């Protein structure tokens, strides 16, 4: 992973910056210790006892995703491609989050499953369950290592700590609070991290805009710097520079179907690291509101993450040179670090460093806390040691958390010597989600879909995505930009659906009685409804109202930045 080139990115951190950093991590560990008091069963540990309020789970829902890939990646995309990057949020996240809250959450929460793979177990049986459980657990623990390595690289560059030291220290902190407080500690820290990240991004956006002369100044500077590509950078549609698809119609199609439908729905609705946050909410109503409440800040974070990227490309000399096609020793991934270096004074600098480190650690904690749940419930309890008392699984969960962190440290060290492999693995795991969504959506709405179709569809779909990716990497297909992953995911989705339909028609479905609560047509309507009295009362807590509101805002922003 080439997050950082060898440019002079060393930040002039003063003692006060370290003090602010230390304050944060004292509180992180404090939260872990406090959360420990409320862990008395495995459900407390893995799903916070399904007790969290909706605003907490909602912020954790988007915060779990606000890690290295998003912060570096989206500012980099902003710097390189400009406004089309907004599609990752307004097309590529909001609709899927609304769909999760309105349509899928009632099945997840209502069926009382404890994980996404467990839903597959109930709906399709062991084959699909094992395929998903194993692939998810493997992916999470390896991605935890990638996050850890990314963090160590940043600490090394920013502060000059040796790689191994930051890897071990960061892993120890994550391990301490996740093994003590379980999901509650992870979620609470995600919420805290969310606010610190916002506190880091706000001054970068506003001070940056002030320095370039406001929005009009930014537009003028981009136009002056890159006259030939300015038009594409400054309007979000058709986003041909982002997709790498020259034809405008196909580019829009790629964004809407590939990114907006397959990739985004696959990620947001079936990735357990996300869905777990909603499952930990304290009621069906709160669970449905989780992704909807998260969608509001998600809509606006697009602005304060992408606009700084665009500003960096005109304000930071090294980056501007890179964009002119000159050789430069920075990469687009450095955009946010360069902007922090150039704009923030000591004090605010410490908080920005805290925000970045917190984001990396929260990313790793999300991987670890979803890994330990799936490993304990879906692999250990389902196939290795059944029918033990609950405190046995709580102990297993804590132990697996330790194992997960140790494996992540190992992965981080492997990553430090095989950069490209880890980069590739991360893309690869992204491909598990697209077919998973296909299988879920077909399985939820078509009661005829059979257990064998569930498992085979997943394997074939993932295989398709990987094949297309390999073909493209070896120049058999020619897709530049981000279009390749859109096409790979779309193909995976289509193949999964097609194969699942064919296999289903040839094999025996499960009897209707076993599918109640899992399939739309067989579930009594009031089982999908939730209690809207007491603390769930009020028009503003209605999922439909929340969903309508965020869709309207997204639509307006889409028009404003057309």
């Amino acid at each position, binding site marked *: 992973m080439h997050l950082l080139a060898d440019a002079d990115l060393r930040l002039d951190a003063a003692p*006060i910056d370290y*003090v*602010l950093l230390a*304050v*944060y991590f004292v*509180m992180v560990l*404090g*939260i872990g210790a*406090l*959360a420990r*008091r*409320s*862990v*008395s*069963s495995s*459900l*407390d540990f893995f799903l*916070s*006892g*399904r*007790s*969290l*309020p*909706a*605003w*907490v789970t909602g912020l954790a829902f988007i915060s779990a995703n606000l890690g290295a890939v998003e912060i570096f990646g989206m500012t980099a995309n902003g710097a390189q491609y400009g406004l089309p990057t907004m599609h990752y949020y307004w097309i590529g996240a909001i609709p899927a989050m609304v769909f999760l809250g309105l349509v899928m959450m009632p099945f997840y929460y209502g069926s009382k499953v404890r994980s996404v793979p467990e839903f597959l177990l109930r709906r399709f049986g062991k084959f699909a369950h094992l395929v998903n459980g194993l692939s998810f657990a493997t992916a999470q623990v390896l991605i935890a290592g990638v996050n850890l390595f990314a963090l160590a690289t940043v600490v090394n560059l920013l502060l000059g700590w040796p790689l191994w030291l930051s890897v071990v220290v960061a892993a120890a902190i994550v391990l301490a609070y996740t093994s003590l407080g379980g999901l*509650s500690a992870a979620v*609470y820290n995600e*919420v*805290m991290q969310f*606010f*610190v990240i916002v*506190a880091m991004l*706000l*001054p970068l956006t*506003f*001070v940056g805009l*002030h*320095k370039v002369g406001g929005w009009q100044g930014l537009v003028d500077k981009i136009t002056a710097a890159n006259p030939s590509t300015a038009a594409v950078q400054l309007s979000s549609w058709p986003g041909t520079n982002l997709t790498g698809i020259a034809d405008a119609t196909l580019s829009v199609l790629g964004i809407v179907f590939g990114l907006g439908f397959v990739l985004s729905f696959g990620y947001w609705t079936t990735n357990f690291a996300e869905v777990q946050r909603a499952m930990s909410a*304290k*009621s069906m109503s709160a669970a449905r509101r989780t992704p909807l409440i998260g969608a509001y800040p998600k809509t606006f974070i697009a602005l304060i993450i992408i606009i700084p990227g665009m500003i960096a490309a005109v304000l930071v000399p090294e980056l501007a040179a890179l964009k002119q096609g000159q050789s430069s020793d920075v990469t687009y991934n450095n955009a946010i670090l360069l902007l922090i270096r*150039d*704009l*923030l*004074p*000591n*004090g*605010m600098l410490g*908080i920005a460093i805290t925000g970045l480190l917190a984001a990396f650690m929260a990313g790793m904690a999300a991987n670890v806390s979803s890994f330990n749940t799936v490993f304990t419930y879906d692999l250990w309890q389902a196939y290795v040691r059944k029918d033990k008392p609950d405190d046995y699984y709580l102990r297993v969960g804590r132990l697996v958390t330790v194992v997960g962190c140790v494996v992540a440290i190992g992965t981080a060290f492997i990553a430090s010597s095989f950069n490209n492999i880890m980069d590739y693995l991360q893309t690869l795991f992204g491909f598990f989600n697209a077919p998973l969504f296909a299988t879920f959506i077909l399985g939820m709405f078509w009661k005829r879909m059979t257990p064998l179709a569930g498992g085979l569809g997943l394997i074939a779909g993932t295989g398709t995505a990987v094949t297309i990716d390999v073909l493209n990497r070896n120049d058999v297909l020619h897709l530049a930009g981000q279009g390749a992953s859109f096409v790979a995911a779309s193909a995976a989705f289509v193949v999964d659906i097609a194969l699942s339909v064919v296999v289903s028609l040839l094999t025996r479905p499960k009897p209707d009685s076993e599918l109640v609560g899992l399939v739309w047509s067989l579930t009594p309507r009031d089982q999908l409804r939730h209690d809207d009295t*007491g*603390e769930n009362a009020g028009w503003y*807590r209605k999922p439909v109202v929340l969903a309508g509101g965020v869709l309207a805002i997204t639509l307006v922003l889409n028009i404003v930045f057309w």
Partner: protein
Amino acid sequence: MSGNKRAGLFDLRGVLALLFGVYGFVLTVMGIATTSQEDLDRAGGINVNLWMGVGMLGAALLFALWVRWRPLTVPTEETGERAPEDA
């Protein structure tokens, strides 16, 4: 839902108020006391620490007010009815 003891017995809003109270205080003091001309120049004349410090103190105050307005009540019953907590 599960048992009688709920996770989340401590109030996250209080933690957030504390964190941003400390951060806001430190930044405000730095903004007033230690801002150099160089700091101002790099931010185009804006005193970043002062603005962010005051902003964070404001955020801390909002969290504190929220706690006062909707205090966290520990549910006493095992299921069903729960006293209003927070939005």
